[in-house]
């Protein structure tokens, strides 16, 4: 279906490009518009006023505003992977082929079944769901809640991943100006002329703000021409950057602000492949000038939500800026002067005006001017009711004095109702900056109080209205901001000449009486999108919800996607009136980021997929990949898990690898282990305090295994540390614990023992470690390092040597995590792969077999060696692990005091033991809980759990390690592991060392 294009356009004028027609589709109908239109202006120019349905009652709704405060005109934009829900049509720029659908209506916008809710609206008041649907619970679970969920929500999420990309920028500037209306442009000019680095960010496609739809002139120029000149000047200043389509949404501590720049949305989906769709700006500004304008408040009267009811300022904008004939007969309902601007716009466009309804008994000079132009002005009157369903058709006008309606009045027919209840400065960013707002009783709005950061508010967002005053304030703010940032002398440029407009004060009319008592005929909407009415606010107050935060939460006022831009102050004023208090006594709700909703994707930026977290690989990684290794994630590292040969599963591969190490020779890439250089006069003392055992007496060239505990005495990390020189140690940590351990060391050095002279440096990435293990390891090393004495006397267990290995300078540590004769060959990382290849080549004749973490885990478990995070979980002491031998009785160390606490010293703590399942083929699941007797009903007392469990080719059977209450006292006893599905596995408690108890293999 195609509708004739632009049937509701003015003959000429506006900032649309009439030479560039565009077609678009809304709810399946094709319409025409022009470049420069928003989706809202284009729809209105086609006479489409019904654009949405409300959240709860599914009331027909039209476009209320022309900006970010729009509560009604929400659309689902586009289809497929690029579809996007809940966009405000007032902010969507029109492009060729745009496809939009209304949200929250079924089967169609004009015939919406959800509208049945209107019939029940008498019962669906604020918080009704807290009072019912309670019994029986099963109905809540199965019927009520699923129904509520289906009714709720607005648009739909895409069903496919986002094809677009996003990026981020980080900038510093001297002056950040937020908003390019008259105040913001003036501030940017004044600051920019000083040479300061100025960034001007504005949410609209075009700079100018209210000037784009203003009929005023500046220095004799039409407002839009002045804007063009200002932009030209800003463009000529090299230190000034102007960013349009950029919404500053968050104001954080230390003048840190975040903004989203929409780079391609206005071009249509996929128009610029490779270009980021949106960009997140992080700005650190020396000074900030907020020039964010103000939002016009709707009036709260009966049935104030019909399509065709629009903010007066939006009426002026659509007529002047977009050339839209909004209707043929308008009524203007206002409490203040600003709506007369809409009167002027309508008159100029030749749109009929039925009357102006001004609540003020003496509306002042603007009303007189309107009357002089032939407009009927009903002073001291209000709109008490409206007519129409899918479009307003008429209003009931009544005199109103002291909140009481005159008994009779007149009915005016109309198809457009422009409303103005005054203005609310956009203090959102000011409030986010921790500034406190204050109520200005004369201006009837919240205005910024004292600034909490290096910031100034200028123009309407500061409660300053009237173009001359706004420009003057903007210029002063810009000049001052630059000066305070070290630029210019603070002199304020001359304010452009603008015509003085005589003004009269506005009227505080927060709730317009209806023809019947509140709530009984018609609805007085406060929050349009969430369908919160004045009646709901009264009800909340009646039920004891007196805090504005309670009323907000109970009624949901201000919690819609517009974040209460049009509803907060009206809601607050109605609450204050209900409670009989002044508005400032009731307070205001806190404004939190974001000012307008922010796309998830732009916050994630490029940090997705591989970039979510850096992938760390060793210099030997490519070799492992080529060899067909499967990998395990250990922290950020990719570690070879096992190296299957053709046809092997993990079990078979591990069996082969494990046999190879015990019987011949295996090689492991151990480069991922954390490595920390510890140097300085007090390095030994420091390690004595950190480790449970003594390191200051360790001989140079010797290695020692150490445990470190947290203050609570629980094991935190472990590893071998070697002494390379008098003031020089080389610590190794677990792979996943490296960063934590370094933080821990630094924490103690910097905060507890600043007197120690010790320096810690991570060298994990600087060294590659190749562990060769097995009975043939010495033969291999002898082959590779002919100049190194490798006999047991010259190179004993737990010592290190420096020398040439395969022609490369290396450090060789004789330590073992498998219980076999082992050497760990360390070379600088760039030589890691070369050394690995040399080891593989020389090892060929020994049958060298690369093995992965799974085999490593199995082999160490056969020896009863622990793994941090597997045998420990932050609740295990060295003594629980049976490692009393490593805990010094002589010296103090972190955690020592805790080891003597009554619970920590308890005899029946969970302690490390071995387990042998009765069925030698049965591998207990790791994590299985152990109980004393099979059966029983929960809660079943648990003795402990299986920490590690394997099938060992070396033992020819399954075995496990476990932590069991009083474990060492239970040797020989049987425990049970109840598994899912009701099966129970029986196992016998044994010593946790299964192989080579005397250590002759590793020590020999």
């Amino acid at each position, binding site marked *: 279906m195609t509708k004739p294009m632009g049937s509701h356009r003015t003959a000429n004028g506006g900032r649309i490009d009439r030479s560039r027609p565009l077609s678009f589709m809304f709810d399946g109908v094709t319409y025409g518009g022009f470049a420069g239109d928003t989706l809202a202006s284009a729809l209105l120019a086609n006479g489409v006023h019904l654009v949405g349905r409300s959240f709860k009652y599914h009331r027909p709704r039209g476009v209320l505003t022309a900006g970010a405060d729009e509560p009604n005109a929400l659309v689902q934009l586009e289809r497929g992977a690029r579809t996007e829900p809940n966009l405000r049509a007032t902010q969507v720029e029109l492009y060729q082929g745009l496809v939009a659908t209304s949200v929250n209506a079924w089967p169609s916008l004009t015939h919406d079944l959800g509208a049945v809710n209107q019939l029940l609206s008498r019962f669906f008041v604020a918080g009704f769901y807290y009072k019912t649907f309670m019994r029986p619970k099963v109905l809540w679970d199965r019927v009520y809640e699923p129904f*509520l969920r289906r009714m*709720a929500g607005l648009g739909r999420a895409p069903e496919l991943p986002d094809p677009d990309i996003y990026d981020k920028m980080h900038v510093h500037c001297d002056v950040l100006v937020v908003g390019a209306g008259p105040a913001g442009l003036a501030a940017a000019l004044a600051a920019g002329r000083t040479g300061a680095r100025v960034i001007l960010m504005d949410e609209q496609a075009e700079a100018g703000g209210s000037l784009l739809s203003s009929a005023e002139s500046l220095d004799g120029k039409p407002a839009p021409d002045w804007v063009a000149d200002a932009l030209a000047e800003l463009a000529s200043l090299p230190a000034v950057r102007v960013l349009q389509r950029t919404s500053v949404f968050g104001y954080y501590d230390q003048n840190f602000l975040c903004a989203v720049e929409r780079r391609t949305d206005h071009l249509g989906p996929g128009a610029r492949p490779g270009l980021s769709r949106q960009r997140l700006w992080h700005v650190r500004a020396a000074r900030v000038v907020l020039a964010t304008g103000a939002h016009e408040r709707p009036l709260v009267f009966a049935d104030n939500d019909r399509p065709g009811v629009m903010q007066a300022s939006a009426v002026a904008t659509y007529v002047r800026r977009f050339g839209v004939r909004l209707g043929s007969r308008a009524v203007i309902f206002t409490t203040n002067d600003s709506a007369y601007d809409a009167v002027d716009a309508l008159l100029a466009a030749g749109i009929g005006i039925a009357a102006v309804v001004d609540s003020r008994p003496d509306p002042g000079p603007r009303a007189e001017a309107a009357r002089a132009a032939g407009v009927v002005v009903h002073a001291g009157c209000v709109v008490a009711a409206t007519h129409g369903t899918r479009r307003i058709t008429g209003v009931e006008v009544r005199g109103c004095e002291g909140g009481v309606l005159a008994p009779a009045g007149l009915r005016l027919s109309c198809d457009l109702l422009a409303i103005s209840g005054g203005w609310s400065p956009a203090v959102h960013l000011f409030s986010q900056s921790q500034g406190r707002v204050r109520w200005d009783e004369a201006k009837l709005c919240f205005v910024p109080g004292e600034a909490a950061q290096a910031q100034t508010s200028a123009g309407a967002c500061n409660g300053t209205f009237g173009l001359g005053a706004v420009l003057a304030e903007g210029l002063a703010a810009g000049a001052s901001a630059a000066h305070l940032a070290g630029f210019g002398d603070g002199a304020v440029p001359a304010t452009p000449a603008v015509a003085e407009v005589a003004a009269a004060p506005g009227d505080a009319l927060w709730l317009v009486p209806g023809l019947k008592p509140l709530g009984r005929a018609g609805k007085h909407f406060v929050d349009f999108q969430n369908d919160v009415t004045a009646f709901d606010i009264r009800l909340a107050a009646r039920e004891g919800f007196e805090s504005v935060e309670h009323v907000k939460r109970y009624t949901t006022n201000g919690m819609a996607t517009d974040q209460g831009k049009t509803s907060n102050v009206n809601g607050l004023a109605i609450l204050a009136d209900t409670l009989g208090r002044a508005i400032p006594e009731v307070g205001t709700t806190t404004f939190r980021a974001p000012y307008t909703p922010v796309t998830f994707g732009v*916050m994630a930026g490029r940090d997705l997929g*591989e970039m979510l977290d850096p992938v760390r690989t060793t210099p030997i990684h490519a070799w492992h990949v080529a060899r067909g290794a499967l990998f395990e994630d250990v922290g950020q590292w990719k570690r070879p898990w096992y190296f299957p040969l053709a046809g092997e599963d993990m079990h078979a591969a591990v069996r082969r690898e494990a046999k190879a190490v015990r019987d011949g020779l295996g090689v492991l890439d151990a480069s991922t282990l954390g490595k920390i250089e510890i140097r300085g006069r007090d390095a030994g003392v420091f390690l004595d305090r950190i480790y449970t055992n003594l390191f200051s007496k360790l001989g140079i060239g010797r290695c020692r295994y150490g445990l470190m505990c947290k203050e609570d005495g629980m094991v935190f990390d472990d590893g071998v540390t070697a002494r390379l020189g008098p003031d020089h140690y080389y610590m190794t940590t677990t*792979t996943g614990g490296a960063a934590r351990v370094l933080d821990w060391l630094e924490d103690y050095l910097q905060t507890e023992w600043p007197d120690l002279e010790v320096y810690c440096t991570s060298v994990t990435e600087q060294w590659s470690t190749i562990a060769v293990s097995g009975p043939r390891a010495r033969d291999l090393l002898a082959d590779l390092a002919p100049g190194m004495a490798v006999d047991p006397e010259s190179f004993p267990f737990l010592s290190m040597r420096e020398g040439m290995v395969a022609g490369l300078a290396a450090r060789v540590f004789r330590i073992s995590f498998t219980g076999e004769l082992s050497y760990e060959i360390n070379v600088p990382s760039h030589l890691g792969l070369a050394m690995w290849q040399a080891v593989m080549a020389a090892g060929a004749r020994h049958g060298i077999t690369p093995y992965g973490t799974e085999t490593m885990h199995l082999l160490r478990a056969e020896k009863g060696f622990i793994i941090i995070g597997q045998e420990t979980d932050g609740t295990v002491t060295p003594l629980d692990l049976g490692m009393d031998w490593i805990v010094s009785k002589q010296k103090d160390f972190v955690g020592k005091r805790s080891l003597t606490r009554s619970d920590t010293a308890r005899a029946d703590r969970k302690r490390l033991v071995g387990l042998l399942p009765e069925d030698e083929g049965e591998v207990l699941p790791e994590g*299985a809980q152990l109980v004393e007797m099979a059966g029983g009903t929960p809660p079943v007392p*648990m003795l402990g759990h299986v920490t590690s469990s394997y099938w060992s080719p070396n033992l020819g059977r399954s075995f496990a390690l476990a932590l069991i209450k009083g474990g060492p006292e239970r040797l020989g006893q049987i425990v049970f592991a109840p598994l*899912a599905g009701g099966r129970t596995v029986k196992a016998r408690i044994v010593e946790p060392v299964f192989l080579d108890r005397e250590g002759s293999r590793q020590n020999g």
Partner: protein
Amino acid sequence: MKQRFSAFTLLRNGLSWHENWQRQWRSPDPKPAYDVVIVGGGGHGLATAYYLAKEHGITNVAVLEKGWLGGGNTGRNTTIVRSNYLWDESAALYEHSLKLWEGLSADLNYNVMLSQRGVMNLAHNLGDVREAQRRVHANRLNGVDAEWLDTAGVKEFCPIINTSPDVRYPVLGATLQRRGGTARHDAVAWGYARGADARGVDIIQNCEVTGFDIEGGAIVGVQTTRGAIRTSKVGVVAAGHNSVLAAKAGIRLPLQSHPLQALVSEPIKPVHDCVVMSNTVHVYVSQSDKGELVMGAGIDGYNSYAQRGSFHIIEHQMAACLELFPIFSRLRMLRTWGGIVDVCPDASPLLTKTPVAGLFINGGWGTGGFKATPGSGHVFAHTIARDEPHPLAAPFSLDRFTTGALIDEHGAAAVAH
């Protein structure tokens, strides 16, 4: 007699234009003396007052709230309810709480919208899998419903999760507690307030406690911004400000306060029907009945009493969210906020007597207090009423930091060599 809430009364009041609804709670001036004073009008404090009145017949109780009730962490959390904790002591306490949750709407005559849609805790590496399975085994023996799902099971339970093996941290499986879910956080505070008020409890808002009156090592009253109040029993339930208040009584608590942020998206039609939590990728996500995606992650690292955090934390959590749910990329964040959580060194709460006779403390719930609200109030009321710990509260006493009987729920450090 308090007006009952039901479909019938809703209908009847609808017909009378809702003019006859009573206040859900009174707004009394403080009396000079109470049997018990509860400091902190959040969910835990209100629940404590409710159970003091309901279970122990102690109705001369005041709840003192420095702001508006439910305005702290009760109104700032991500509303997740579950009980699948590892250790016996925790599982018993949280399961007690979950059982109370299951009857809470009926008990309070207030629909707290408990939504048992299932909570999945994802595992992304072999260490996660080991710990998750350990927790499942322990939960079952403790009578807490728990299942282990493999990757296919995760996909079936929550089809929109990206379970591709090619992502940075593939989903290797998950634990599932089907009885877990969410509840409407504000309603919990309001429901307890209404229930306590109906039993005679005075709920006093905008009343800040500025000091404690202690004589001979025993509490005799509190000083407030609305005057002195005499009492022999005080329960401090002030979350992020517990340590500040305890210091006024001369007690140094083992607590650190941190900001914890959360956010919601704009409301969308139902797309995500359960709660998904991931410690490794670090985000948790559910969808509210209103249609908003509700999500959170970890604490801000620094200590603070300001109810706001840093934006980079949200950026990081959003990356984690999109890694798990790529279809959410074009949705938009509507609101963010922060609360102040008080964290014990062992990540378990305090439900405890103190060295000051008559002064009791309930806190240290860290990032997970909401789910405990009914159970916490229930056992804390018992502890105050009997002046001795409820058996479920006993392990959470302050002296565990002296004896070493810690209940370390940091979750096992999933680290391997």
